[in-house]
């Protein structure tokens, strides 16, 4: 009656290959970090600030930003919390691409050139790398991002098959970092468009077999600022730090609106 766990009992002792798990030590290296600065308290103009830093092998862009803030200029401002890619606080434009600073290893960037860090686009900049997230969360709230279930509440759990669960697994990974939405050219120019993240979260419920509000959500997304604004440029899928196939999710929602078959 249960799922299979691998039951093969591992050996009490094994021969380890030499240097196993070492991952290869990476020496320190120098970088130039350029950060887009803006603080309306002191000036209306944005500008670039630049630092030369010595960093370690496993350091990420977030470590470089911390080094600046902690050792050079405490006024450099950015959001961060978990520092390993699950809280979604530190989405920013790194060398022109939306990424999480805590998941971008410096050694994976071209360190022979300056590393450019800017706030994500399409949302009002508050200070340095901090943007106003409210419009982003407003779109999210509009697609009814919660399970709606009609009929009697079961006494135990609702049943759902593994296949039904798998149907929306990909879109449950979203951490609401806004990397996708703020990489979307339509979102940059059209302040009204819901944006990919809101559609991803709608998808998560539309394709959940336990949910009864799929039609309502499809109606919302069939709006003029809904899914049809998407021009399938794939920026969002490339930007997603969780590897969600965002464009695919949007197409599935489009398809569902056309056929009203979930």
């Amino acid at each position: 009656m249960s799922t299979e766990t691998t039951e093969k009992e591992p050996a009490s002792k094994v021969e380890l290959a030499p240097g196993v798990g070492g991952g290869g030590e990476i020496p320190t290296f120098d970088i130039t970090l350029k950060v887009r600065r803006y603080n309306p308290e002191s000036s209306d103009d944005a500008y670039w600030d630049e630092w030369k830093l010595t960093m370690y092998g496993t350091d990420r862009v977030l470590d470089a930003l911390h080094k600046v803030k902690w050792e050079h200029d405490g006024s450099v401002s950015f959001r961060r919390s978990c520092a390993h890619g699950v809280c979604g606080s530190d989405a920013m434009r790194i060398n022109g691409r939306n990424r999480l600073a805590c998941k971008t290893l410096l050694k994976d960037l071209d360190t022979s050139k300056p590393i450019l860090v800017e706030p994500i686009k399409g949302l009002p900049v508050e200070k340095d790398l901090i943007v106003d997230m409210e419009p982003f969360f407003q779109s999210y709230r509009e697609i009814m991002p919660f399970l709606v279930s009609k009929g009697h509440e079961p006494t135990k759990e609702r049943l759902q098959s593994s296949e039904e669960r798998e149907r929306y697994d990909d879109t449950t990974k979203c951490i609401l970092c806004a990397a996708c939405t703020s990489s979307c050219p339509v979102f940059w120019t059209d302040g009204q468009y819901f944006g990919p993240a809101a559609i991803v979260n709608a998808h998560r419920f539309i394709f959940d077999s336990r949910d009864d509000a799929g039609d309502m959500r499809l109606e919302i997304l069939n709006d003029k600022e809904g899914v049809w604004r998407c021009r399938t440029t794939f920026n969002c899928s490339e930007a997603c730090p969780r590897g969600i196939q965002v464009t695919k999710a949007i197409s599935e929602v489009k398809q569902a609106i056309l056929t009203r078959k979930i």
Partner: protein
Amino acid sequence: MQVHKYDVVIVGAGGAGMRAAIESGQRARTAVLTKLYPTRSHTGAAQGGMCAALANVEDDNWEWHTFDTVKGGDYLVDQDAAEVMAKEAIEAVLDLEKMGLPFNRTPEGRIDQRRFGGHTRDHGKAPVRRSCYAADRTGHMILQTLYQNCVKHNVEFYNEYYVLDMLMVDEEVTVDGETRIQKRVAGVVSYDLASGELHIFQAKSVVFASGGVGKVYKTTSNAHTLTGDGMGIAFRRGIPLEDMEFFQFHPTGLAGLGILLSEAARGEGAILRNSEGERFMERYAPTIKDLAPRDIVARSMANEVREGRGAGPNKDYVLLDLTHLEPAHIDAKLPDITEFARTYLGVEPYTEPVPVFPTAHYAMGGIPTNIKAEVLLDNDTVVPGLYAAGEVACVSVHGSNRLGTNSLLDINVFGKRAGLAAAEYALTADFVEIPENPTVETEELLNRARSSEGTERVAQIRKELQDIMDANVQVFRTEETLLEALRVIDTLEERYTRITVQDKGKRFNLDLLEAVELGFLLDMAKVMTAAALHRKESRGGHFREDYPTRDDENFMTHSMAYKDPTATETSGVRLETKPVIFTRYQPMERKY
């Protein structure tokens, strides 16, 4: 300065805070204050699961779960609280499923369950499948699901409002003809990060759900923002902190980084090996081996390294071996943590063992509460209208060592209880008048940091604090290391009075925020170290090499740390004790 008025104010928007808000928000006018955005809270980093004796995949019952929790906590658990938690676990999981949480499923479509450290069948006979999970991102799913339901119920959030103080007043009450002074809570003072303005929130009930204090350590699985603010505020306002010497080190942090690799890896069959390729847990816990509770596994790992069997160029870590598991199984059950190994260490878990070492993970101690989540001012006096739940609180269901998955359970069970109790109290109570000059202390705190012209840097003091805590107050402790730590913390505290905050602005002054956080960290490090010095025995997560055995005769008690400037020998922390509540189980030797 703005004054807001709510029936209930909840401080913190992680699992416990939002679970409380869902209950309270439907019954009373509720505001949730968080220094982040709700979905950034560290509940989202929890991975492995949430235990409940659903018995969906094999025989189980809540009494076994209670026993495991009590034994896991080395008998320092309050057994009434553990019973409540294990019993209400079942409903807590079903509540989440009904709210929409996408649990993994059995072939019959029911919630699937897997093994986890210290959770056993029939009082320790063998590991049991009790953990309900959603791949290895159960915490993420809980946080998202609770936030979704807060949206559904129109819960009012104040995002990036950092609570810095709690307003308390002394009231005269007459009970049985006897007049005495009673402490009551009137509200909180918060700092709006966006504008730099102070806001007062007057409330009938205040719920603290602001999380832990992992950033006192250098190597930690905790977020940068977990700086013990809630515990610090309570402590400064005269509320004791319970069992702060017990801090959990999670065995499997990515070596050198501290990023968590879930115990679910071992639940799914991964094992630990030393540099000789030996599965060393067979020696330390012959029955349940790699699935022994975290304190035992972490200590065993540290011991292997100490005795020279560490792996790697510096022989300073051990290896988590998943190579005997099917890649498809790993992908289905452990996708996120294997990606962490690839991203951050460049190690391929299919074919190579992953370097791991214990990482500071969870505070078992915190603000003392009873099972109604009411905060205690001493061993039995309740502060009317004040509640705490989750990692910030100590109820105490974790005793001296928390079992894996029991924190996601704790936040759901006691978060719900706190929300219900806070709303219920608010519906019958009146507002307490805000004291005069309510923000004077907070303004002083902020002005001191902003205007100081000293030469000390916040980041440097914090680094030295984390270094001494890692070196001296970690898995192994002695009187000598603890006294040395206290001495260092005292000097850091003195230097803290001479810090400079470079950012002088009001808007998103996160430089100032870090300075304030450091103040809480210093206070909490002091409390943790003083409490560790006071407990001259070894129990659960607290191991004293100079007192290596459990001493029930003298120390089968909770510790209660009070702020007391006259306690000069222990840096202004006075230690008292509080009896442990026993219901079913008498202490036995703890073997696995």
